[in-house]
């Protein structure tokens, strides 16, 4: 047990810091760490920055060298994310390509698919979005209804996806589609790659309670893609998609923890600045929030260690989403409590919440998306603790 990093790791950290110090300047630095998916301000600058990252080899950090990655260790990836967050560098635009599709192709894709798509991700020239959720398949991926049928050498796709982040900017979408309607629910799915810029695809922003549109709806009306752009084989999409969801965990938690740490500190600062931190009740809540974010860090480090040692995260990793989403919701409520009546006043019209207000509002979605807290508890109960499943009318596995 030792929480110090070794010399090689410290060297890597220095390399990251130096590069960021040299390159994160001017309009890049001015952008700050903000820029959610719905934030259109500075989008072109973020794209340019992402290409700089790609040129310097920071995209695909953990990918194998043979596919153009750097083969960095998990600790190094963690260090990179940590330093990136600490430097308040711009929000990444290539998350879905680098974090989800890339690893999926490396694991399940054909050699042609790898050659065709990995370089575009590494150079930040092709952006991806993810087409899994549907209106009737929120937590129940096996219930996907979007249909794909083969028409000569092309798939023809009709249906609808929701909660698709970045769809309006993406060049490509990876989507789970039903290719065999007669097979049992999760046996008739395929994992397809479709170009976004075509007449058969329409993207509509989905406005959230924050007033902005972090997500989109994507409508497919006889959208087309080449017959060979199915990953992992026809009707094998369930397995491929489960693999993708596995990659979703990754090592991003350390930078996420750092972001939460910063936010917690800004709450403490706010309380002190407004002379609220002397109130014993407020002190309890601040201490509780701070404890929560520290434990998030400790949990993350334990997961990292398990990943290093065994290649798979320990039980505490499966609780991560459940934990941070609840913590962040409580923090949002504390922020409102501290602001008191000022919490009602927006920064501007028509509907412009500030950082605290945004956390309060947006955090309601966090216990829902990518597997609601209820689904997380099912997964933990069944897959970690081995408790018996419920009698289920369908065979779908919860996401």
């Amino acid at each position: 047990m030792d929480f110090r990093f070794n010399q090689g790791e410290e060297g890597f950290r220095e390399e990251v810091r130096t590069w960021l110090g040299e390159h994160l300047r001017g309009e890049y630095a001015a952008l700050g760490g903000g820029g959610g998916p719905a934030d259109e301000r500075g989008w072109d600058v973020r794209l340019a920055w992402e290409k700089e990252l790609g040129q310097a080899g920071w995209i695909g950090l953990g990918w194998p060298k043979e596919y153009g990655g750097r083969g960095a260790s998990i600790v190094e990836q963690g260090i990179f994310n940590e330093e990136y967050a600490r430097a308040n560098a711009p929000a990444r635009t290539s998350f879905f390509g680098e974090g989800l599709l890339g690893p999926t192709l490396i694991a399940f894709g054909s050699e042609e698919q790898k050659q065709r798509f990995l370089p575009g991700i590494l150079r930040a020239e092709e952006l991806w979005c993810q087409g899994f959720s549907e209106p009737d398949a929120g937590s129940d991926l096996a219930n996907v209804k979007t249909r794909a049928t083969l028409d000569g050498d092309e798939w023809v796709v009709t249906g609808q996806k929701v909660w698709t982040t970045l769809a309006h900017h993406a060049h490509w979408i990876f989507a789970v589609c039903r290719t065999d309607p007669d097979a049992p629910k999760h046996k008739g799915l395929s994992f397809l790659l479709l170009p976004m810029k075509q007449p058969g695809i329409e993207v509509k922003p989905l406005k959230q309670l924050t007033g902005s549109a972090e997500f989109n709806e994507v409508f497919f009306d006889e959208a087309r893609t080449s017959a060979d752009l199915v990953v992992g084989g026809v009707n094998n999409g369930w397995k491929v998609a489960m693999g993708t969801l596995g990659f979703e965990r990754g090592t991003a938690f350390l930078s996420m923890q750092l972001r939460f740490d910063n936010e917690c500190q800004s709450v403490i600062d706010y309380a002190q600045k407004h002379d609220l931190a002397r109130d014993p009740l407020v002190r309890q809540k601040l201490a509780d929030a701070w404890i929560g974010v520290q434990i998030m860090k400790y949990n993350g480090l334990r997961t990292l260690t398990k990943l290093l040692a065994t290649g798979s995260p320990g039980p505490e990793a499966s609780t991560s989403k459940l934990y941070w989403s609840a913590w962040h919701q409580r923090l949002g409520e504390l922020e409102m409590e501290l602001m008191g009546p000022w919490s009602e006043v927006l920064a501007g019209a028509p509907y412009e919440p500030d950082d605290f207000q945004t956390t309060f509002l947006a955090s309601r979605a966090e216990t829902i998306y990518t597997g609601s807290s209820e689904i997380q508890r099912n997964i933990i109960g069944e897959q970690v603790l081995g408790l018996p499943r419920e009698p289920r009318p369908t065979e779908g596995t919860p996401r």
Partner: protein
Amino acid sequence: MNFAFSEEQEELRRTVRSFLEDKSPSAEVRRLMETEEGFDPAVWRQMAEQLGLQGLAIPEEYGGSGFTYVELVVVLEEMGRALLCAPYFSTIALAANTILHSGDDAARKELLPGIASGETIATLAFTEDNGRWDAEGITMTATKSGGAYTLDGHKMFVLDGHTAGVIVVAARTGDGISLFQVAGDASGLGRTALQTMDQTRKQARLEFSGVPAKLIGAEGKGWDTLGRVLDLAAVALAAEQVGGAQKCLDMAVDYAKVRVQFGRPIGSFQAIKHKCADMLLEVESAKSAAYYAGWAAAELNDELPVVASLAKAYCSDAYFHAAAENIQIHGGIGFTWEHDAHLYFKRAKSSELLLGDPTYHRELLAQRIGI
């Protein structure tokens, strides 16, 4: 011993509910909340003329129909349920109550008939930048010169302050806190509508510079009135909260019955079912608290200060919890702008903080029961 509404009160509820279903459906709430005024003057007139809602609890001698606070609780509950966008709470629960309990019969005669008839929109300008709801929070000063008063300073978070025709202002003179009547279009008065997170209840910032004002009640005795008004307003707000909370429970239960996941309605899963059961428990308990407080307000009895804080604290928590759970139970659709869940969620939060948050009211209650 009878803890139920009378048949007449239930009839009033049905009438108001049906009126609001007609006049304040979701589309109308959404249209009005995007406007700066935040209400529909035609509907406001109909409320007064067709249903007599503004004058409901105003004594007959001042142009009202002299019903009790219990009837007001029924009306406010329905307004909270419908998220009615209108200056009813500010005009009735704040301004009319202040005027009525000011001991100033001239002011009553001058102002209450206009309120009862729906002509006058009014509000109470109490809070300032410090956001406090206690006497110490009032720092604005009134200056007497000759027989006339002028006001200088500012008020903040004033409900419907930018649209009210009559503003009752709490300010300090040498004698202490006093109440003043100011016209909405008085010279020297600057009014700025605030952009608020909850768009269904409007707030404004008011800047006073040498604004002429008329004293209401006795100089320096304003807190005697305001203390009672804050209790009455807390009861009114608790009633609104109960209506909103019940609506959230209804929405959640209805959705849980029809939304199918994993081949079953989600309401058949204990995770959802038990959430709904807990919501029911809290909503029913909130009703008990708000109704009991309504009776105490109608009686103006000794219990009022305690049960007002009790109801405000409990109903605030119950509403926020119900509104948050409603979003969670709806899943993805629940946090979209187009679904109404967020409107209730935001209203629950703004109501929770209005008149002091639950922590504040629990402390107040502790003092009031002698802890």
